[in-house]
């Protein structure tokens, strides 16, 4: 299995070359936090930092204009207004450099929903076809990382076009897809020596060691559904939740959205914007009825969607990438792992259950 290598300087040159005819998003310091920002030559890319926001933004932006409309007064009948509607499809080419394997998994989850046999969302598909992912593997793991427990890992290349493993002096690169290999050709990559490839392997092994033992979530779907009507359980799990939306907006695999019309004068647009299933209004019906009236119901739905419903519909694929952003960014440190594991452990003897939950 051959790999390539690029030094840090040449990496910068590669980014410069890519940015000539494409939008390049890289992790950068943005007023003190690291987020994906457009790269221009001269700006410093922080490829060793995981951005707060998820790389899904490259193909699923927070705000998307679906269509524009314009009202015109009908000259033949001033009482009447005519409306013109025009769809707005994205066309820009882009590369997202510096996401992590967990972030790339977001694309896998979204692909199966937004681009499949029965459903093809042209906005997502257009962006997806025009956007490439250069993912950086992880050299260390945090206490909130659990990618290995949900089917991913520190060097998981699924969903990426190129995978870079940081080594001394640069990166060992793998062209995962055909287009990824074409991308590599635009940079000054050399053949990677065996020593370098071994080093890359060692880096990943060390990270895997830091991750510790993976937790088995395979019976989570069944166990979560068993808890469905147990409102005592969900009230307890959701007690500390404050129903904001930080978890959903930073999540690489969340894809729920809202559609709203915004008009100014005689023209306007229809927007698709990220929405959070943790808010009260999400399922509020016109009649006033709400199928998910409390935060307990909504937490149940979120956990259910990620660890039960989605896997059931998509061959066991868990709609969570284990990046830990929700845990880190939750203002009250609600831990998705603890909730799912509490459901998994539910029938165990109470003392045993507590021991397991601490693991």
């Amino acid at each position, binding site marked *: 299995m051959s790999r390539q290598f690029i030094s840090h300087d040449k990496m910068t040159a590669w980014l410069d070359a890519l940015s000539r005819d494409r939008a390049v998003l890289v992790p950068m310091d943005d007023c003190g936090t690291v987020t994906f920002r457009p790269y221009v030559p001269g700006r410093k890319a922080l490829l060793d930092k995981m951005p707060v926001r998820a790389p899904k933004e490259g193909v699923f932006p927070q705000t998307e204009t679906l269509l524009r409309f314009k009202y015109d007064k009908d000259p033949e009948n001033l009482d*009447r207004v005519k409306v013109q509607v025009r769809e707005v499809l994205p066309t820009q080419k882009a590369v997202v450099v510096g996401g992590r394997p967990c972030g790339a998994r977001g694309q896998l989850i979204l692909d199966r929903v937004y681009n499949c046999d029965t459903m093809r969302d042209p906005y997502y598909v257009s962006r997806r076809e025009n956007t490439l992912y250069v993912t950086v593997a992880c050299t260390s793991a945090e206490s909130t990382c659990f990618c290995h427990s949900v089917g991913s890992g520190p060097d998981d290349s699924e969903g990426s076009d190129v995978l870079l493993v940081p080594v001394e002096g640069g990166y060992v690169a793998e062209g995962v897809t055909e287009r990824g290999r074409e991308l590599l050709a635009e940079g000054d990559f050399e053949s990677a020596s065996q020593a370098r490839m071994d080093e890359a392997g060692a880096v990943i092994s060390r990270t895997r060691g830091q991750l510790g033992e993976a937790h088995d979530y395979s019976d989570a779907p069944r166990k979560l559904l068993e808890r469905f009507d147990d409102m005592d359980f969900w009230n307890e799990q959701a007690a500390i939740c404050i129903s904001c939306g930080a978890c959903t907006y930073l999540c690489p695999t969340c894809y729920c959205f809202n559609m709203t*019309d915004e008009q100014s004068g005689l023209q306007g647009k229809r927007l698709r914007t990220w929405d959070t299933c943790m808010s009260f209004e*999400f399922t509020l019906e016109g009649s006033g009825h709400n199928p998910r009236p409390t935060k307990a119901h909504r937490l149940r739905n979120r956990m259910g969607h990620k660890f039960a419903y989605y896997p059931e519909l998509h061959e066991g694929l868990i709609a969570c990438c284990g990046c830990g952003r929700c845990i880190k960014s939750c203002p009250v440190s609600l831990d998705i792992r603890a909730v799912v594991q509490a459901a998994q452990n539910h029938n165990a003897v109470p003392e045993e259950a507590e021991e397991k939950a601490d693991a």
Partner: protein
Amino acid sequence: MHNNPSLPALATVLEVVEETPNIKTFRVRFNDESLMESFSFMPGQVGQLSIFGVGESTFVINSSPTRMDYLQFSVMKVGEVTSRLHQLKAGDTVGVRAPLGNWFPVDEMKGKDVVFVAGGIGMAPLRTLLVYMLDNRADYGKITLLYGARSPVDLSFKYDVEEWMARDDLDVVLTVDAPAEGWEESATRRVGLIPNVLLELNPAPENCVAVTCGPPIMIKFTLQALKKLEFGDEQIITTLEKRMKCGVGLCGRCNIGTKYVCVDGPVFRYSDLKDLPNEL
């Protein structure tokens, strides 16, 4: 449908009919004639009506696909979009994204007797199926319609009902919750709650399918009545209403467990609903 499921097609309102104080029926035709020609749908499917600048709302296409002069939607005024829809006049433009969702199992119902139990605006989704069956009359057995509302003024499609009551190939029974002025009680114009009248009518479950729609509380008690009459779970069909936005199984609002009401529904058999998590 376009290859952009989020893009509505423009349609013009041909006619507006006032059904009740808060329900209006809109008959529309696509501006694009070739789209109108090629458009097809099955009874039970829904559409999203757009008022550009305000938003979208979901309604069943309650005309029958056997009569394609126009598409018909009935709107109850409850919120922002529906209020603006109610302001539409003939000649106005509206956006339509249709057809969405699944449909009534019309083929499986062939050769069977059908009992329709409709409450209030719930008559709308049942209307499309009823007219479809009447236009394919030979394919179906005995058809019974039980249609109830709070009061006589709340009954929609009065013009249709008159026509149906005049036919001899279906039985129609209307009911209102309480006695009302001008409502002359008879075998076909009763006073009583829908589930109770249903029990009185006592339809036989053998080779029969019951299709019901209406306010949640009515459906709940109608289901109980149907079970009492010994209808099997697979013999009871209903259509659900949920908050829908995208209508194509993406935005995550309308799911009940693994089922998306906009894709796997809105038509469901009771046997399917029973297996779903309790999140109606």
